[in-house]
Protein backbone atom coordinates (compact mmCIF):
# COMPACT_ATOMS: atom_id res chain seq x y z
CA UNK A 1 0.00 0.00 0.00
CA UNK A 2 2.72 2.47 1.05
CA UNK A 3 4.39 2.89 -2.31
CA UNK A 4 6.43 5.88 -3.49
CA UNK A 5 7.03 7.03 0.09
CA UNK A 6 9.58 9.85 0.11
CA UNK A 7 12.87 9.48 1.97
CA UNK A 8 12.90 10.61 5.59
CA UNK A 9 15.88 12.69 6.72
CA UNK A 10 16.53 11.35 10.24
CA UNK A 11 19.34 13.86 10.77
CA UNK A 12 16.94 16.79 10.55
CA UNK A 13 14.30 17.29 13.25
CA UNK A 14 11.57 19.71 12.20
CA UNK A 15 9.74 19.44 15.54
CA UNK A 16 11.31 18.68 18.91
CA UNK A 17 9.17 18.57 22.05
CA UNK A 18 10.59 18.01 25.54
CA UNK A 19 8.82 17.67 28.88
CA UNK A 20 5.55 19.15 27.68
CA UNK A 21 2.82 19.51 30.29
CA UNK A 22 -0.65 21.01 29.93
CA UNK A 23 -3.66 21.02 32.23
CA UNK A 24 -7.13 22.52 32.02
CA UNK A 25 -8.59 23.56 35.37
CA UNK A 26 -7.99 20.51 37.54
CA UNK A 27 -7.47 18.06 34.68
CA UNK A 28 -3.90 17.14 33.73
CA UNK A 29 -3.95 16.38 29.99
CA UNK A 30 -0.30 16.17 28.94
CA UNK A 31 2.16 14.98 31.59
CA UNK A 32 5.66 15.25 30.23
CA UNK A 33 5.47 14.60 26.50
CA UNK A 34 8.67 14.12 24.47
CA UNK A 35 8.38 13.91 20.70
CA UNK A 36 10.49 14.36 17.55
CA UNK A 37 9.30 14.76 13.98
CA UNK A 38 11.85 14.26 11.22
CA UNK A 39 11.91 15.94 7.84
CA UNK A 40 9.71 14.14 5.32
CA UNK A 41 8.12 11.91 7.96
CA UNK A 42 4.46 11.15 8.56
CA UNK A 43 4.08 10.65 12.31
CA UNK A 44 0.74 9.33 13.56
CA UNK A 45 -0.29 10.17 17.12
CA UNK A 46 -2.76 7.54 18.30
CA UNK A 47 -4.87 7.69 21.40
CA UNK A 48 -8.36 7.61 22.79
CA UNK A 49 -10.60 10.66 22.79
CA UNK A 50 -9.68 13.18 25.47
CA UNK A 51 -6.05 12.06 25.81
CA UNK A 52 -4.73 15.40 24.58
CA UNK A 53 -3.86 14.60 20.96
CA UNK A 54 -5.48 17.76 19.59
CA UNK A 55 -4.08 19.80 22.47
CA UNK A 56 -0.61 18.66 21.42
CA UNK A 57 -0.89 19.98 17.85
CA UNK A 58 -2.59 23.17 19.04
CA UNK A 59 0.46 23.80 21.24
CA UNK A 60 2.77 23.10 18.28
CA UNK A 61 0.92 25.68 16.16
CA UNK A 62 0.89 28.22 19.01
CA UNK A 63 -2.89 28.16 19.49
CA UNK A 64 -2.40 27.00 23.08
CA UNK A 65 0.43 27.72 25.47
CA UNK A 66 2.10 24.89 27.37
CA UNK A 67 2.24 25.01 31.18
CA UNK A 68 5.73 23.50 31.25
CA UNK A 69 8.06 22.22 28.54
CA UNK A 70 9.82 23.20 25.35
CA UNK A 71 8.40 23.11 21.82
CA UNK A 72 10.86 23.69 19.03
CA UNK A 73 9.44 23.99 15.50
CA UNK A 74 11.80 24.49 12.56
CA UNK A 75 14.52 25.67 14.94
CA UNK A 76 12.31 28.16 16.81
CA UNK A 77 11.01 27.93 20.38
CA UNK A 78 7.28 28.51 19.86
CA UNK A 79 6.50 29.86 23.34
CA UNK A 80 9.28 32.48 23.08
CA UNK A 81 8.10 33.97 19.77
CA UNK A 82 6.39 37.34 19.61
CA UNK A 83 3.19 37.77 17.57
CA UNK A 84 5.01 38.71 14.37
CA UNK A 85 7.50 35.83 14.60
CA UNK A 86 4.71 33.39 15.39
CA UNK A 87 2.78 34.61 12.34
CA UNK A 88 5.87 34.04 10.18
CA UNK A 89 6.29 30.52 11.59
CA UNK A 90 2.64 29.72 10.98
CA UNK A 91 3.16 30.32 7.27
CA UNK A 92 5.27 27.17 7.37
CA UNK A 93 2.70 25.11 9.27
CA UNK A 94 -0.52 23.82 7.72
CA UNK A 95 -3.32 22.85 10.11
CA UNK A 96 -6.16 20.65 8.86
CA UNK A 97 -9.00 20.82 11.39
CA UNK A 98 -11.22 17.94 12.45
CA UNK A 99 -14.36 19.61 11.09
CA UNK A 100 -12.47 21.30 8.25
CA UNK A 101 -13.21 24.78 9.72
CA UNK A 102 -14.12 26.20 6.32
CA UNK A 103 -15.40 29.79 6.48
CA UNK A 104 -19.06 29.12 5.87
CA UNK A 105 -19.92 32.64 4.71
CA UNK A 106 -17.41 32.37 1.84
CA UNK A 107 -17.30 30.34 -1.37
CA UNK A 108 -14.60 27.70 -1.86
CA UNK A 109 -12.62 30.17 -3.98
CA UNK A 110 -12.80 32.82 -1.24
CA UNK A 111 -11.84 30.22 1.37
CA UNK A 112 -8.73 29.34 -0.60
CA UNK A 113 -7.88 32.96 -1.42
CA UNK A 114 -8.27 34.12 2.17
CA UNK A 115 -4.84 33.11 3.55
CA UNK A 116 -3.14 33.82 0.24
CA UNK A 117 -4.20 37.43 -0.30
CA UNK A 118 -3.41 38.31 3.29
CA UNK A 119 0.04 36.80 3.33
CA UNK A 120 1.20 37.39 -0.26
CA UNK A 121 -0.16 40.85 -1.07
CA UNK A 122 2.11 41.22 -4.10
CA UNK A 123 0.36 38.41 -6.00
CA UNK A 124 -1.66 39.30 -9.09
CA UNK A 125 -5.16 37.94 -9.76
CA UNK A 126 -3.65 35.59 -12.33
CA UNK A 127 -1.09 34.21 -9.85
CA UNK A 128 -3.79 33.66 -7.23
CA UNK A 129 -6.00 31.78 -9.71
CA UNK A 130 -3.06 29.62 -10.78
CA UNK A 131 -2.16 28.68 -7.19
CA UNK A 132 -5.81 27.89 -6.42
CA UNK A 133 -5.97 25.65 -9.50
CA UNK A 134 -2.84 23.76 -8.36
CA UNK A 135 -4.16 22.99 -4.87
CA UNK A 136 -7.67 22.17 -6.08
CA UNK A 137 -6.15 19.82 -8.61
CA UNK A 138 -4.07 18.23 -5.85
CA UNK A 139 -7.22 17.42 -3.86
CA UNK A 140 -9.24 16.58 -6.98
CA UNK A 141 -12.05 19.09 -6.45
CA UNK A 142 -11.62 21.72 -9.17
CA UNK A 143 -15.36 21.65 -9.95
CA UNK A 144 -16.36 22.94 -6.49
CA UNK A 145 -14.63 26.31 -6.78
CA UNK A 146 -17.78 28.44 -6.82
CA UNK A 147 -19.77 26.37 -4.33
CA UNK A 148 -20.44 27.20 -0.69
CA UNK A 149 -19.01 24.88 2.01
CA UNK A 150 -22.54 23.88 3.04
CA UNK A 151 -23.07 22.37 -0.43
CA UNK A 152 -20.16 19.92 -0.02
CA UNK A 153 -20.07 16.45 1.51
CA UNK A 154 -17.97 15.70 4.61
CA UNK A 155 -15.17 14.18 2.54
CA UNK A 156 -15.13 17.11 0.12
CA UNK A 157 -14.98 19.56 3.01
CA UNK A 158 -11.98 17.70 4.42
CA UNK A 159 -10.25 17.86 1.05
CA UNK A 160 -10.93 21.59 0.68
CA UNK A 161 -9.69 22.10 4.25
CA UNK A 162 -6.44 20.38 3.29
CA UNK A 163 -6.26 22.43 0.05
CA UNK A 164 -6.61 25.66 2.05
CA UNK A 165 -3.66 24.70 4.24
CA UNK A 166 -1.58 23.69 1.21
CA UNK A 167 -2.08 27.03 -0.49
CA UNK A 168 0.68 28.62 1.61
CA UNK A 169 3.04 25.71 0.77
CA UNK A 170 3.72 24.67 4.39
CA UNK A 171 6.72 22.59 5.40
CA UNK A 172 4.81 20.89 8.21
CA UNK A 173 1.23 19.56 8.07
CA UNK A 174 -0.83 18.94 11.20
CA UNK A 175 -3.92 16.79 10.60
CA UNK A 176 -6.50 16.67 13.38
CA UNK A 177 -8.62 13.50 13.01
CA UNK A 178 -8.60 13.55 9.18
CA UNK A 179 -10.94 10.57 8.82
CA UNK A 180 -13.32 11.26 11.72
CA UNK A 181 -16.97 11.04 10.70
CA UNK A 182 -16.25 9.73 7.21
CA UNK A 183 -17.39 6.50 5.59
CA UNK A 184 -14.69 3.82 4.97
CA UNK A 185 -14.33 4.56 1.23
CA UNK A 186 -13.94 8.31 1.79
CA UNK A 187 -11.51 7.58 4.65
CA UNK A 188 -9.34 5.57 2.25
CA UNK A 189 -9.39 8.48 -0.20
CA UNK A 190 -8.30 10.89 2.55
CA UNK A 191 -5.50 8.50 3.59
CA UNK A 192 -4.30 8.44 -0.01
CA UNK A 193 -4.49 12.22 -0.15
CA UNK A 194 -2.35 12.54 3.00
CA UNK A 195 0.31 10.32 1.41
CA UNK A 196 0.01 12.24 -1.86
CA UNK A 197 0.52 15.55 -0.02
CA UNK A 198 3.61 14.12 1.68
CA UNK A 199 5.02 12.99 -1.68
CA UNK A 200 4.03 15.96 -3.86
CA UNK A 201 4.53 18.86 -1.42
CA UNK A 202 7.42 17.24 0.51
CA UNK A 203 5.83 17.94 3.88
CA UNK A 204 6.53 16.48 7.30
CA UNK A 205 3.27 15.67 9.06
CA UNK A 206 1.72 14.85 12.39
CA UNK A 207 -1.54 12.98 11.97
CA UNK A 208 -3.80 12.86 15.01
CA UNK A 209 -6.24 9.97 14.86
CA UNK A 210 -7.86 7.08 16.65
CA UNK A 211 -8.50 5.32 13.34
CA UNK A 212 -6.03 2.43 13.06
CA UNK A 213 -6.56 2.03 9.30
CA UNK A 214 -5.57 5.66 8.83
CA UNK A 215 -2.58 5.13 11.13
CA UNK A 216 -1.41 2.04 9.23
CA UNK A 217 -1.88 3.60 5.78
CA UNK A 218 -0.35 7.00 6.42
CA UNK A 219 2.13 6.64 9.27
CA UNK A 220 5.86 6.10 8.85
CA UNK A 221 5.98 6.01 12.62
CA UNK A 222 3.26 5.67 15.26
CA UNK A 223 3.28 7.21 18.73
CA UNK A 224 0.74 5.95 21.24
CA UNK A 225 -0.50 8.59 23.71
CA UNK A 226 -1.80 7.14 26.96
CA UNK A 227 -2.27 8.85 30.33
CA UNK A 228 -0.72 12.07 29.05
CA UNK A 229 2.53 10.48 27.85
CA UNK A 230 3.79 8.58 24.81
CA UNK A 231 3.86 4.98 25.99
CA UNK A 232 5.10 3.40 22.77
CA UNK A 233 6.64 4.63 19.53
CA UNK A 234 7.69 2.77 16.41
CA UNK A 235 6.18 1.19 13.32
CA UNK A 236 2.55 0.09 13.41
CA UNK A 237 3.56 -3.51 14.11
CA UNK A 238 6.08 -2.53 16.80
CA UNK A 239 3.58 -0.41 18.68
CA UNK A 240 0.93 -3.11 18.84
CA UNK A 241 3.33 -5.98 19.54
CA UNK A 242 2.87 -5.61 23.27
CA UNK A 243 1.25 -7.25 26.27
CA UNK A 244 -0.05 -3.88 27.51
CA UNK A 245 -3.79 -4.45 27.86
CA UNK A 246 -4.70 -0.82 27.20
CA UNK A 247 -2.94 -0.90 23.83
CA UNK A 248 -4.29 -4.34 23.01
CA UNK A 249 -7.86 -3.31 23.79
CA UNK A 250 -7.42 -0.16 21.67
CA UNK A 251 -6.33 -2.38 18.75
CA UNK A 252 -9.06 -4.97 19.21
CA UNK A 253 -11.84 -2.44 19.68
CA UNK A 254 -10.80 -0.50 16.59
CA UNK A 255 -10.77 -3.50 14.30
CA UNK A 256 -13.89 -5.11 15.72
CA UNK A 257 -15.60 -1.76 15.13
Amino acid at each position, binding site marked *: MKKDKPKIDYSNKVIEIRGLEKSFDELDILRGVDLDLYQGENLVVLGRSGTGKSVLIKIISGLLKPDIGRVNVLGQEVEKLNAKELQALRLKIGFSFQNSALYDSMTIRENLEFPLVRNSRHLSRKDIDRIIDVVLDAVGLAQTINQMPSELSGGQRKRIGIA*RTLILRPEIMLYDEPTAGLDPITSIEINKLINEVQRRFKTSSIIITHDLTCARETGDRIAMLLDGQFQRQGTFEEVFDTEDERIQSFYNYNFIQ
Partner: protein
Amino acid sequence: MRKYVTTRRLDRLFLELYRIYTFVIRFFKEVFLPPYEAKEIIAQCYEVGVRSLPLISLTGFIIGIVFTNQSRPSLAEFGATSWLPSLISIAIVRALAPLVTAIIAAGRVGSSIGAELGSMKVTEQIDAMEVSATNPFKFLVVSRVLATTLMVPALTMYTMFVALMGAYLSVHQNELTSITTYFVQVFSAISFLDIFSSIIKSFLFGFTIGMVGSYKGYFSSKGTEGVGKAANSSVVTAMFLIFIEELLTMQIINAIRAF
Protein backbone atom coordinates in the same frame (compact mmCIF):
# COMPACT_ATOMS: atom_id res chain seq x y z
CA MET B 1 -2.81 20.52 38.61
CA ARG B 2 -3.66 24.24 38.63
CA LYS B 3 -3.34 26.09 41.92
CA TYR B 4 -5.63 29.07 42.63
CA VAL B 5 -4.32 32.40 43.91
CA THR B 6 -7.54 33.13 45.82
CA THR B 7 -10.59 30.93 45.30
CA ARG B 8 -11.61 29.35 42.02
CA ARG B 9 -14.53 31.78 41.50
CA LEU B 10 -12.58 34.87 42.47
CA ASP B 11 -9.66 33.84 40.26
CA ARG B 12 -12.06 33.42 37.35
CA LEU B 13 -13.64 36.82 37.98
CA PHE B 14 -10.25 38.56 37.96
CA LEU B 15 -9.19 36.62 34.86
CA GLU B 16 -12.43 37.64 33.12
CA LEU B 17 -11.89 41.31 34.02
CA TYR B 18 -8.32 41.10 32.78
CA ARG B 19 -9.51 39.47 29.56
CA ILE B 20 -12.05 42.27 28.97
CA TYR B 21 -9.37 44.87 29.63
CA THR B 22 -6.88 43.28 27.20
CA PHE B 23 -9.64 42.84 24.58
CA VAL B 24 -10.49 46.55 24.64
CA ILE B 25 -6.83 47.63 24.71
CA ARG B 26 -6.07 45.27 21.81
CA PHE B 27 -8.82 46.94 19.76
CA PHE B 28 -7.27 50.40 20.24
CA LYS B 29 -3.81 49.03 19.41
CA GLU B 30 -4.87 47.22 16.26
CA VAL B 31 -7.34 49.72 14.86
CA PHE B 32 -4.52 52.08 13.85
CA LEU B 33 -2.10 49.43 12.57
CA PRO B 34 -2.03 48.10 8.99
CA PRO B 35 -3.22 46.01 7.25
CA TYR B 36 -6.61 47.76 7.16
CA GLU B 37 -9.42 45.38 6.27
CA ALA B 38 -11.27 48.05 4.26
CA LYS B 39 -13.39 45.60 2.28
CA GLU B 40 -14.60 43.86 5.42
CA ILE B 41 -15.26 47.18 7.20
CA ILE B 42 -17.42 48.37 4.28
CA ALA B 43 -19.28 45.05 4.20
CA GLN B 44 -19.95 45.31 7.93
CA CYS B 45 -21.04 48.96 7.62
CA TYR B 46 -23.54 47.84 4.99
CA GLU B 47 -24.74 45.04 7.26
CA VAL B 48 -25.09 47.30 10.31
CA GLY B 49 -26.24 50.48 8.58
CA VAL B 50 -28.15 49.79 5.39
CA ARG B 51 -29.76 46.54 6.50
CA SER B 52 -31.04 48.14 9.70
CA LEU B 53 -32.83 50.90 7.79
CA PRO B 54 -36.25 49.22 7.33
CA LEU B 55 -36.55 48.38 11.04
CA ILE B 56 -35.21 51.78 12.15
CA SER B 57 -37.54 53.61 9.74
CA LEU B 58 -40.63 51.84 10.95
CA THR B 59 -39.74 52.08 14.64
CA GLY B 60 -38.67 55.73 14.45
CA PHE B 61 -41.79 56.76 12.55
CA ILE B 62 -44.13 54.96 14.94
CA ILE B 63 -42.34 56.36 18.00
CA GLY B 64 -42.78 59.89 16.59
CA ILE B 65 -46.53 59.38 16.13
CA VAL B 66 -47.13 57.55 19.41
CA PHE B 67 -45.10 59.98 21.51
CA THR B 68 -46.98 62.95 20.02
CA ASN B 69 -50.37 61.34 20.51
CA GLN B 70 -49.57 60.40 24.10
CA SER B 71 -48.22 63.86 24.97
CA ARG B 72 -51.11 65.85 23.43
CA PRO B 73 -53.79 65.26 26.11
CA SER B 74 -51.52 66.48 28.93
CA LEU B 75 -50.62 69.65 27.04
CA ALA B 76 -54.23 70.14 25.89
CA GLU B 77 -55.33 70.38 29.55
CA PHE B 78 -53.30 73.60 29.81
CA GLY B 79 -54.16 74.73 26.28
CA ALA B 80 -50.50 74.32 25.38
CA THR B 81 -50.66 72.03 22.33
CA SER B 82 -48.68 74.63 20.39
CA TRP B 83 -45.71 73.50 22.53
CA LEU B 84 -45.92 69.99 21.08
CA PRO B 85 -43.18 70.44 18.40
CA SER B 86 -40.74 71.81 21.01
CA LEU B 87 -41.50 69.03 23.48
CA ILE B 88 -41.22 66.36 20.81
CA SER B 89 -37.96 67.67 19.40
CA ILE B 90 -36.30 67.82 22.84
CA ALA B 91 -37.44 64.31 23.72
CA ILE B 92 -36.50 62.80 20.38
CA VAL B 93 -33.17 64.53 19.84
CA ARG B 94 -31.88 64.36 23.40
CA ALA B 95 -32.99 60.89 24.45
CA LEU B 96 -35.39 58.85 22.36
CA ALA B 97 -33.54 58.67 19.04
CA PRO B 98 -30.10 57.67 20.44
CA LEU B 99 -31.61 55.23 22.92
CA VAL B 100 -34.10 53.59 20.56
CA THR B 101 -31.50 53.28 17.80
CA ALA B 102 -28.98 51.76 20.19
CA ILE B 103 -31.52 49.27 21.56
CA ILE B 104 -32.58 48.21 18.06
CA ALA B 105 -28.93 47.91 16.99
CA ALA B 106 -28.10 45.89 20.11
CA GLY B 107 -30.98 43.51 19.35
CA ARG B 108 -30.37 43.19 15.63
CA VAL B 109 -26.64 43.70 15.20
CA GLY B 110 -25.21 42.84 18.63
CA SER B 111 -26.91 39.45 18.72
CA SER B 112 -25.88 38.73 15.14
CA ILE B 113 -22.21 39.56 15.87
CA GLY B 114 -22.30 37.42 19.02
CA ALA B 115 -23.88 34.48 17.19
CA GLU B 116 -21.66 34.76 14.11
CA LEU B 117 -18.37 34.97 16.00
CA GLY B 118 -19.58 32.39 18.52
CA SER B 119 -20.38 29.97 15.74
CA MET B 120 -17.00 30.66 14.12
CA LYS B 121 -15.30 30.03 17.44
CA VAL B 122 -16.95 26.68 18.17
CA THR B 123 -16.41 25.43 14.60
CA GLU B 124 -12.71 26.42 14.87
CA GLN B 125 -12.96 28.96 12.03
CA ILE B 126 -11.27 31.59 14.21
CA ASP B 127 -8.45 29.15 15.00
CA ALA B 128 -8.22 28.37 11.27
CA MET B 129 -7.66 32.07 10.54
CA GLU B 130 -5.04 32.29 13.23
CA VAL B 131 -3.03 29.28 12.03
CA SER B 132 -3.15 30.56 8.45
CA ALA B 133 -1.15 33.58 9.69
CA THR B 134 -4.15 35.92 9.47
CA ASN B 135 -5.07 38.12 12.41
CA PRO B 136 -8.67 37.10 13.24
CA PHE B 137 -9.01 39.92 15.75
CA LYS B 138 -8.31 42.48 13.07
CA PHE B 139 -10.51 40.85 10.45
CA LEU B 140 -13.46 39.98 12.68
CA VAL B 141 -13.44 42.22 15.74
CA VAL B 142 -11.89 45.50 14.58
CA SER B 143 -14.04 45.61 11.44
CA ARG B 144 -17.28 44.92 13.33
CA VAL B 145 -16.59 47.34 16.19
CA LEU B 146 -15.63 50.07 13.71
CA ALA B 147 -18.80 49.41 11.71
CA THR B 148 -21.10 49.70 14.73
CA THR B 149 -19.22 52.74 16.07
CA LEU B 150 -19.60 54.57 12.76
CA MET B 151 -23.06 53.38 11.76
CA VAL B 152 -25.03 53.77 15.00
CA PRO B 153 -24.54 57.60 15.03
CA ALA B 154 -25.60 57.73 11.36
CA LEU B 155 -28.66 55.64 12.16
CA THR B 156 -29.40 57.89 15.15
CA MET B 157 -29.47 60.97 12.90
CA TYR B 158 -31.78 59.10 10.55
CA THR B 159 -34.04 58.04 13.45
CA MET B 160 -34.26 61.66 14.59
CA PHE B 161 -35.44 62.72 11.13
CA VAL B 162 -37.92 59.85 10.70
CA ALA B 163 -39.35 60.26 14.22
CA LEU B 164 -39.75 64.01 13.72
CA MET B 165 -41.56 63.31 10.44
CA GLY B 166 -43.84 60.83 12.19
CA ALA B 167 -44.52 63.43 14.87
CA TYR B 168 -45.23 66.06 12.19
CA LEU B 169 -47.86 63.79 10.66
CA SER B 170 -49.70 63.68 13.99
CA VAL B 171 -49.22 67.42 14.68
CA HIS B 172 -50.40 68.40 11.21
CA GLN B 173 -53.44 66.14 11.40
CA ASN B 174 -54.60 67.56 14.74
CA GLU B 175 -53.25 71.09 14.93
CA LEU B 176 -53.07 71.80 11.17
CA THR B 177 -49.54 73.14 11.65
CA SER B 178 -47.56 73.71 8.42
CA ILE B 179 -44.26 71.87 7.95
CA THR B 180 -42.30 75.15 7.98
CA THR B 181 -43.82 76.29 11.27
CA TYR B 182 -43.35 72.82 12.71
CA PHE B 183 -39.64 72.66 11.90
CA VAL B 184 -39.04 76.26 13.01
CA GLN B 185 -40.49 75.29 16.41
CA VAL B 186 -38.52 72.01 16.43
CA PHE B 187 -35.17 73.70 15.81
CA SER B 188 -35.83 76.68 18.10
CA ALA B 189 -36.24 74.26 21.02
CA ILE B 190 -32.94 72.42 20.57
CA SER B 191 -29.37 73.63 20.62
CA PHE B 192 -26.15 72.50 18.97
CA LEU B 193 -25.17 70.85 22.27
CA ASP B 194 -28.30 68.66 22.12
CA ILE B 195 -27.46 67.28 18.70
CA PHE B 196 -23.73 67.08 19.39
CA SER B 197 -24.18 65.24 22.68
CA SER B 198 -26.59 62.76 21.06
CA ILE B 199 -24.08 61.98 18.34
CA ILE B 200 -21.24 61.53 20.82
CA LYS B 201 -23.49 59.31 22.92
CA SER B 202 -24.33 57.25 19.82
CA PHE B 203 -20.64 56.69 19.08
CA LEU B 204 -20.31 55.31 22.60
CA PHE B 205 -23.42 53.13 22.21
CA GLY B 206 -22.18 51.81 18.85
CA PHE B 207 -18.77 51.02 20.28
CA THR B 208 -20.39 49.21 23.21
CA ILE B 209 -22.65 47.12 20.95
CA GLY B 210 -19.77 46.05 18.69
CA MET B 211 -17.39 45.39 21.54
CA VAL B 212 -19.82 43.38 23.67
CA GLY B 213 -21.04 41.29 20.69
CA SER B 214 -17.49 40.60 19.55
CA TYR B 215 -16.22 39.77 23.03
CA LYS B 216 -19.07 37.39 23.79
CA GLY B 217 -18.71 35.65 20.43
CA TYR B 218 -14.91 35.57 20.39
CA PHE B 219 -14.74 33.83 23.76
CA SER B 220 -17.81 31.61 23.47
CA SER B 221 -17.44 27.94 24.25
CA LYS B 222 -19.47 24.78 24.92
CA GLY B 223 -20.60 24.14 21.34
CA THR B 224 -23.97 25.20 19.98
CA GLU B 225 -25.23 26.00 23.47
CA GLY B 226 -22.40 28.52 23.74
CA VAL B 227 -23.44 30.20 20.47
CA GLY B 228 -26.96 30.77 21.80
CA LYS B 229 -25.58 32.08 25.07
CA ALA B 230 -23.18 34.40 23.24
CA ALA B 231 -26.02 35.87 21.15
CA ASN B 232 -28.32 36.28 24.12
CA SER B 233 -25.70 37.68 26.45
CA SER B 234 -24.51 40.13 23.74
CA VAL B 235 -27.94 41.76 23.71
CA VAL B 236 -28.55 41.71 27.47
CA THR B 237 -25.09 43.02 28.40
CA ALA B 238 -25.07 45.68 25.66
CA MET B 239 -28.52 47.00 26.69
CA PHE B 240 -27.51 47.05 30.34
CA LEU B 241 -24.36 49.03 29.52
CA ILE B 242 -26.25 51.36 27.15
CA PHE B 243 -28.68 52.37 29.91
CA ILE B 244 -25.82 52.98 32.34
CA GLU B 245 -23.99 55.04 29.70
CA GLU B 246 -27.19 56.99 28.99
CA LEU B 247 -27.52 57.84 32.66
CA LEU B 248 -23.89 58.91 32.99
CA THR B 249 -23.76 60.96 29.78
CA MET B 250 -27.03 62.68 30.73
CA GLN B 251 -25.48 63.77 34.05
CA ILE B 252 -22.34 65.02 32.30
CA ILE B 253 -24.29 66.91 29.61
CA ASN B 254 -26.62 68.47 32.18
CA ALA B 255 -23.57 69.63 34.12
CA ILE B 256 -22.10 71.15 30.93
CA ARG B 257 -25.45 72.78 30.15
CA ALA B 258 -25.64 74.28 33.64
CA PHE B 259 -22.07 75.54 33.33
